[in-house]
């Protein structure tokens, strides 16, 4: 009985973001963090583990330094982690990425009682596509935007959030769930965890390990196998600086409203 969680290491876009002259991101200057929504996915898995005794396995695809993030997850209570990493996987778009992660999950093995959980979306690309696309490649049902998960045997009842309310959806395991931040509050690493995580299993799946899987094909993975390509990237325009009004008293707000009325803005 396992919960497989997919996580991503991302640049911290909430702070200062440096853009190079050619319009690409200066990643070297940025901190990397665990994608925030993925922490909610980890917490969802760990709280189900606390209640039902699941084994929690986290999967990530990325360069070797992502192993550091996986150690942190084990310090939080994740039992095992898998780093999917190979030069051949680089440059993948969401389609190609989901092929590779689906192949890794399938190689690891999914049983009838298992659940795959992902965060809603990653803050670098904000696509929310990889979760559903993994589910499609594995022929599993999906429930996205989960705001509440209730388990009863192999049936999960999930509140799937919509812009104007929510749907209550029932689904059988095995299935894919993507969760939103309102689902829970992620826990911290424990002191004991930070010591023990170094001895816990971190498995690497490289190209060799996955190349014979039916989803892995030079035409569907990596930069060459990605259906989408970046044509141009650029920074948004800087709007011209407007008018700073003097003071902050009644005469200032009167002046402002006067300008707005004369321009028929209000």
């Amino acid at each position, binding site marked *: 009985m396992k919960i497989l969680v997919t996580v991503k290491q991302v640049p911290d*876009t*909430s702070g200062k*973001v440096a*853009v190079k002259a050619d319009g*690409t*991101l200066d990643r070297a200057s940025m901190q990397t963090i665990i994608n925030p929504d993925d922490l909610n996915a980890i917490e969802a898995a760990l709280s189900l583990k606390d209640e039902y005794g699941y084994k929690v396995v986290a999967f990530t695809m990325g360069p070797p330094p992502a192993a550091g993030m996986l150690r942190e997850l084990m310090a939080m209570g994740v039992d095992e982690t898998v780093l999917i990493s190979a030069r051949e996987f680089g440059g993948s*778009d*969401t*389609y190609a990425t989901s092929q590779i992660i689906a192949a890794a999950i399938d190689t690891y093995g999914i049983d009838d009682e298992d659940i795959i959980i992902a965060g809603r979306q990653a803050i670098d*690309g*904000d*696509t*929310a*596509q*990889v*979760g*559903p*696309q993994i589910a*499609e490649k594995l022929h599993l*049902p*999906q429930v*996205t*935007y989960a705001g509440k998960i209730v388990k009863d045997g192999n049936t999960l009842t999930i509140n799937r*959030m919509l*812009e*104007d*309310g*929510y*749907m*209550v*959806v*029932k*689904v059988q395991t095995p*299935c894919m769930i993507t969760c939103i931040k309102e689902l829970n509050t992620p826990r911290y690493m424990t002191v004991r965890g930070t010591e023990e995580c170094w001895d816990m299993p971190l498995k690497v799946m490289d190209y060799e390990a996955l190349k014979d899987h039916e989803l892995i094909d030079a035409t569907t993975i990596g930069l060459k196998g990605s*259906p989408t*390509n*970046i*044509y*141009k*990237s*650029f*920074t*948004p*325009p*800087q709007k011209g*600086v*407007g008018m*700073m*009004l003097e003071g*902050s*008293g009644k005469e*200032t*707000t*009167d002046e402002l*409203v*006067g*300008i707005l*009325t004369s321009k028929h*803005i*209000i």
Partner: protein
Amino acid sequence: MAYNSADIAAFKNVWVFCEQRQGKMMPTTFELISEGRKLADELGCELHGILLGEDMDGIAKELGGYGADKVLVCDSPLLKNYTTDGYTKVIADMVQEYKPEIMIFGASNIGRDLAPRCAARLHTGLCADCTHLDVDLNGYINFLRDGSSLDVDNTNFETKMFDVNTNLKMTRPAFGGHLMATIVCPRFRPAMATVRPGVMQKRAFDEAKAAACELVHPEFELEASDIHTEVVEIVKAAKKMVDLIGADFIVSVGRGIAKDVEGGIKIAEEIAEELGGVVGSSRAVVDAGWISADHQVGQTGKTVHPKVYIALGISGAIQHKAGMQESECIIAVNKNDAAPIFEIADYGIVGDLFKVGPLLLESIRAAKAEA
């Protein structure tokens, strides 16, 4: 012959997924049809809506008024409520049958569940949450002239990889709005995109075009056993959701309200009420639990372009700016004269929102009394 998404020449026409909930068309569908019309005209092809649901004919015709030449209506009790499996199967089957070259969806919680699943099944590319679409290269270049910091006249737009004049160019913010990227899907069809609600402009309704719109009821196969989730119930939010996207006036609050959260929100509400607008907020205010998430403006919230956007105590993080910088007039009130919000504000006042806010309300009331 087997379906082959790489056989580019076999694909024609632009499709829009027409999202409805409980038999009512989602407003963003009309924006997408309007935008789809532009793309179809640039390609010289037809625009088709694809509408899934039960007893949909009544709301299908209206799509013609915004530019659809034809609407494929897929009616079934099994499609009454949205399910990933049911909708994906019917759409993927229809795409394989009719082969549109472009397909766009609204980037709603349903569109963003459905589109990736369809793209993965159809082996094609999908670009998420687009804010601008072009087929015509000159149109794209003109968009970049105002919409980017690129030196357009000294940029090479040609490439040997694909035809830049016929491929859909899908532009979207990335890295929290710090960067914009234009994505193409040159080797597979349909080129698919989800489009952010509220960004594309709705056309004026055309009665004649609505009357001329053809409804088609294609045959499709769908069994209850194809659907692996069960919708138990649909719950509408108890309180009315804030209509940020349709609002002409938005008064937003940021972290600056921290010292008196209720008081700060009340000031914003009063100004909004006086102007006939609504209250927005920055992400920090939502994350702190001070206001519900439907008020959030920004990269992870809503994109708005009201006539007037008043930012009270909002510093102007790039994620926030990404959602409101297209507002016609931006007014910023902040204690910190170095707050980035002033970089994009049309009018700025350096001061405490708890003092300036009530004065602004008084001035507006006085001006209205005079008018």
